[in-house]
């Protein structure tokens, strides 16, 4: 049983019901003692992976494959990676990646900074035009985008229609490197090294379409052991191995700071901003936006993982330890800006930052995900809930009695699946 993001291994599943309760969109059921995912609803948050005591659930992203020697292999590095190695500097990490066989290791910080400028610009213009509704929502967290698309599609027009920084980098780097090495564009293989499997290409949503510029994704947890070994082997600092790339700056602290909740907005010159992380909290805030609150906020940074991307499901090191490493970087490097505003401004005018598809254009396709309930259905549901008088035991395979009653109304489950109903 597999969704786009998650693999359920039946042989390890004991039907313990932990995952059905953890799933924030109630997309998992237990059928015949095994977890089954309603794949059309999965948003790839990874909560089920975290709670499964048997290790029966894992990410569907491809295992580390050996690099193809005749191709130009490029690591596009999420700055979260630096935070996994407390004893090393970001440059050591890039160097380690080169030792592993990558031809280039590209730091994302520069593009993150450009993205921040673009957000400031968008918001400044929106103050005048009021084209997009306040508060605007950061397009960075793919799980949040999916959550809004599936459960709150009428809020899709709050998502800022800018490209994700990894999307910005992908297209440009591929062109530059194919020219530089004199190879075809398809011979440049981009590996996204990521803390989060939702960032893996998913055409379904269209929300992150620009991420399909990446060819492959490698979880930080997969690359961690091998990379650590290579980094420990580096004894002397050899200048010819220096990992700078002429099209990106040396990594500083701004990049890793993005991994912390609040790190994205901390680098922006905006005041009416707020950062929220963790699933329960973001749902509460999204519901507030739906009720017309928070209109005096301009930009909200949502991160599905608590503490931000440092807590991503594919990281190797505990989120608080990683955070401490980032805080060390902040002390060493500070968070000064390096990108030239003039250059960014030009690119902005050219439309370089804008996503090809506006999230709001997708709203209709999400409304049709589930068949609508009728007045009769909801009466049946309320009635069943009051007859069961249950305590959300989960024995029927649904996360709670309400969801069970809905499943019955939709014809996905049988009343007899509830042991209280069986006893009559």
């Amino acid at each position, binding site marked *: 049983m597999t969704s786009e993001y998650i693999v359920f291994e039946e042989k390890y599943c004991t039907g313990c019901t932990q995952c059905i309760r953890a799933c924030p969109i109630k997309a998992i059921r237990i059928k015949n003692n095994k977890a089954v995912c309603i794949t059309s609803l999965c948003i790839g948050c990874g909560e089920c992976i975290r709670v499964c005591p048997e290790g029966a659930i894992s990410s569907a992203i491809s295992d580390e494959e050996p690099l193809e020697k005749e191709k130009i292999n490029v690591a596009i590095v999420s700055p979260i990676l630096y935070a996994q190695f407390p004893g090393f500097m970001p440059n050591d990490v890039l160097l380690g990646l080169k030792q592993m066989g990558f031809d280039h290791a590209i730091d994302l910080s520069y593009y993150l900074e450009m993205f921040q400028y673009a957000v400031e610009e968008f918001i400044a213009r929106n103050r005048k035009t009021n084209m997009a509704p306040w508060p605007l929502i950061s397009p960075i967290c793919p799980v949040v985008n999916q959550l809004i698309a599936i*459960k709150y*599609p*009428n809020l899709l027009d709050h998502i800022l229609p800018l490209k994700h920084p990894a999307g910005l980098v992908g297209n440009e780097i591929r062109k530059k490197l194919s020219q530089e090495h004199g190879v075809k564009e398809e011979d440049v293989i981009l590996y996204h090294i990521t803390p989060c499997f939702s960032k893996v290409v998913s055409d379904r949503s269209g929300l992150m379409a620009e991420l399909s510029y990446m060819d492959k994704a490698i979880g930080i947890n997969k690359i961690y052991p091998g990379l650590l070994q290579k980094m420990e082997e580096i004894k002397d600092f050899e200048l010819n191995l220096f990992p700078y790339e002429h099209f990106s700056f040396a990594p500083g602290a701004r990049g890793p700071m993005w991994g912390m909740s609040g790190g994205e907005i901390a680098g922006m010159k905006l005041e009416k901003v707020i950062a929220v992380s963790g699933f329960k909290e973001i749902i509460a805030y999204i*519901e*507030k936006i*739906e*009720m*017309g*609150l928070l209109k005096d906020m301009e930009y909200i940074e949502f991160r599905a993982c608590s503490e931000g991307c440092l807590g991503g499901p594919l990281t190797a090191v505990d989120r608080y330890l990683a955070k401490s490493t980032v805080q060390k970087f902040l002390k060493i490097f500070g968070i000064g800006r390096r990108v030239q505003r003039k250059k960014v401004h030009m690119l902005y005018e050219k439309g370089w930052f804008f996503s090809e598809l506006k999230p709001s254009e997708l*709203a209709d396709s999400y*409304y049709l995900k*589930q068949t*609508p*309930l*009728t*007045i*009769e259905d*909801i*009466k049946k549901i*309320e009635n069943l809930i009051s007859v069961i008088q249950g305590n959300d035991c989960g024995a029927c395979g649904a996360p709670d009695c309400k969801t069970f009653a*809905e499943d019955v109304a939709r014809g996905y489950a049988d009343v007899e699946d509830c042991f209280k109903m069986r006893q009559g």
Partner: protein
Amino acid sequence: MPSFKKCFNIRSRDFIHAGEASIAVQQLLKQMHVDSNLIRRIAICGYEGEMNVVMHGGDGLFCVEIDKNKIVLNISDDGQGIKDIAKVMEKGFSTATDEYREMGFGAGMGLPNMEKNADNMIIESENENGTTVQMTFFTKSA
């Protein structure tokens, strides 16, 4: 004509759970694929109404009734009541205390905002004897 009715209790000064009834109604309407703009209007009215009970009213009841053509919110409480209904309908009028203003409430937009978003609104209140606000929303006939 089959209709569906459900009620939720609201407790005075319970800011932790304030808004939950509106959210539950909102989720229900979403499952029924009610027009999203309409859901939004109902959510705004529901939330304002719920907060009014939590802040000014006593304990209250939040009821939703859904039938084919309309959705009715009926929010009632046993609190202090409204002395002058015409006055509270004025934009900017507020009786919120400093404490509530610090929490971001008290802009004096509550009831006018509800009236703006509802298709029809009726307030019944007697001084010292509670308040009932009934808001009707018409669904677009298919």
